[in-house]
């Protein structure tokens, strides 16, 4: 039951849920994601309610560049696949593999974040700010909240990579890897709805 019974010895097949602490962490994180669903759900509802309130500002149809959104989408989607491969490496108890795939996840995630920041700066120059109109407010609230989640995820996963090289894969670090990968997938799923509802539907008008 204690969190370090498996030090030194071979890890069990599912090291992320081998201890009660690990099981608690994974379940608790899943429930947290349920709460996050409501959080993003409320932001989506707000955006859908206010997305046509552009006043004399520019609408999404005029602002959005589908090329940038497509590039950002591919980056995030691929990084989500890489975090799957990190968990696959964890199943093989291959610490180097986990670190490698997580590092690439971070790299692609950072690329996504960079594109988003570039995009936001561009919009601000176009006069599309949080204070411009209700469309701008709800756009930055929704997409910005998602971006903040990405940024936090990057910090978190980077810290995990460092921890793995210090502590190796144990029944303490394995749940962290698993949970971080869940978080990253969830961010990707939210992005699926953002590119659909915000950008593509914005383009449709």
């Amino acid at each position, binding site marked *: 039951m204690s969190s370090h019974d498996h030090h030194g010895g071979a890890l069990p097949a599912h090291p992320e849920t081998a201890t009660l602490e690990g099981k608690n962490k994974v379940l608790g994180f899943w429930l947290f994601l349920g*709460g996050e669903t409501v959080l993003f759900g409320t932001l989506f509802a707000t955006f859908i309610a206010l997305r046509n309130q552009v006043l004399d500002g520019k609408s999404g149809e005029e602002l959005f560049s589908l090329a940038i959104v497509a590039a950002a989408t591919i980056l995030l989607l691929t990084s989500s696949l890489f975090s799957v491969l990190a968990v696959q490496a964890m199943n093989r108890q291959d610490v180097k593999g986990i670190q490698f795939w997580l590092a690439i996840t971070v790299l692609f995630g950072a690329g996504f974040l960079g594109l988003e920041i570039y995009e936001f700066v561009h919009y601000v120059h176009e006069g599309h700010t949080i204070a411009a109109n209700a469309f701008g407010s709800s756009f930055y609230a929704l997409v910005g909240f998602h971006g903040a989640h990405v940024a936090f995820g990057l910090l978190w996963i980077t810290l995990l990579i460092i921890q793995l090289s210090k502590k190796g894969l144990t029944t303490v670090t394995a749940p962290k890897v698993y949970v971080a990968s869940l978080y990253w997938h969830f961010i990707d799923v939210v992005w699926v709805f953002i590119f659909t509802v915000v950008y593509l539907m914005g383009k449709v008008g």
Partner: protein
Amino acid sequence: MAHAHTVKRYSGLMDWLTTVDHKKIGILYLLAGGFFFLVGGLEALLIRIQLIQPLNGFVDGQTFNELITMHGTTMIFLAAMPLIFAFMNAVVPLQIGARDVAFPFLNAVGFWTFFFGGLIVNVGWLYGGNPDAGWTNYAPLSTGFSGIGADYYAIGLQIAGIGTLVGGINFLVTIINMRAPGMTYMRMPMFTWTVFVTSFIILFAFPALAVGLVLISFDRLFDANFFNVAGGGNPVLWEHIFWIFGHPEVYILILPAFGIISEILPTFAKKRIFGYSSMIFATVLIAFLGFMVWVHHMFTVGLGPLGNALFSVSTMLIAVPTGIKIFNWIFTFWGGRIEFTTANLYALAFVPTFVMGGVTGVMLASPAADFQYHDSYFVVAHFHYVIVGGIVLGLFGGAHYWWPKMFGRKLSESLGKVTFVLFYTGFQLTFFVQHLLGLWGMPRRVYTYLPGQGWDNLNLVSTIGAFFMTAGTIVLLINIVLTTMKPKDQPADPWDGRTLEWTIPSPPQEYNFKQLPLVKSLDPLWEAKMKGEEVPAAEPLGPIHMPSPSILPFTMSVGLFIAGLGIMYANHDFVNQSVEKFFHSMIPVYAGLAIILISMFLRSVIDDHGYHIEVEELQKEV
């Protein structure tokens, strides 16, 4: 297999700041929630003094607005919620036969964020400018016309809300993963069941509030336009978001009170709870329907006949599961050997009082009638019957019932009965007449009224009732002080109880159960007592692993506190130059965020090995 880790164990104040023991955190919640309960009660008393006669000049209109806002906000978020969390912490792990909660560290984070969030909401008492837009904080009043008070409200509740959400997740995982062997879902005590369901509601309702508060803050601090009509926003959006959270919040509060009543009644009727599985069904149904009724707070907004009719029907539906519960309670004490202890007096008074609040609720659920009642004292009477007559009676009953388990001392029964009589009489005096005041046209949230409208006498009666309630609360305080001076002499099972918390000493050792119990039925202790046995153990005596205390939950919350104050004052002008330089900037925000991130970093990299309590030590403590 047990490694002996040396661990620093603190004493005195540091012990309370660093504790991760759910029983101590429960006591912290009780103290902090009790403190805010007194503050909110004082605010209520001041409101009633102002309304004692027409054209009274005790406080001015602005102060009155601040008083009603702070009374509502404090009582809901800073008194009722933490008091419920106090009993959740103190009782649930014991009832399910667990040694701890799932996340002891996060449990402490939850308490401290609630506490510092509560301080921010109340910081206006020191520096002026309290929240004054009502506890519902409607836009555009709160976004365009309130002073810094609305920031205190939004940021403070945001921080306190983190604590609540964390607490909800913690209890969900605790109940799902850490039940004792044999404790199936259908053998869980009713209080645990209601906490389980309440935690789910918290999980799905509080994120909506968090978003709403962020939007309010963005409108106020960054000139966003969510609720600003001139910028394309819609103030009704806030009402929707607030009540999508706000109505489930009502059930977050009342369901654990239902649970407390469902523990007290069987114990003092010497009967198993009637209709156990229908109680669970009703609880889950109430929680589910609770998410689909929010528009009944907004009938007069004018959403049209379809919206109003839909939400009217869903609201009335809730009366069905609630009625199931009422009848189950009646059948529980029907034919029982009823003991009139203080706890049971509260429970017995709860049932008819809550029925009254429920009946006026069904009246309000009819939109046509609601157009007459809306924003009148009838509504005030309704929700005080539910909240005071339901939640507060439940909490007071629970306090008398579990006080021996939490502290090892029993609250004085005779003083307790004095409190009950004073408080209950005062409650009926204060709020029954408010039904009539509302039906006679007195609007709520007015700081004074003209004479000669037939409201004078009933307002006087209502204020006299408030003094009765105050007297009852003072007697309760005296009772608590006197009890605290008595020795810890309570046995494990002072009430001849039925559930697992009464199988271990009062107060329990830090590890709760020396050996995890084996549960074979509902009410395992009662079952064992009837057979003349003890509750069997599920495991041999072995070393017990405990989590280490940590100061990090406290520092994280301090960081949030500093960052929260900082972001509010970043746009604020100060008279003093040097103060201006520091606070009229983002320095405090970054400092606060740095403290949070460093604390989180330390938590992540330092493995908590905890420590073990060895078998020899366990045997010594027999």
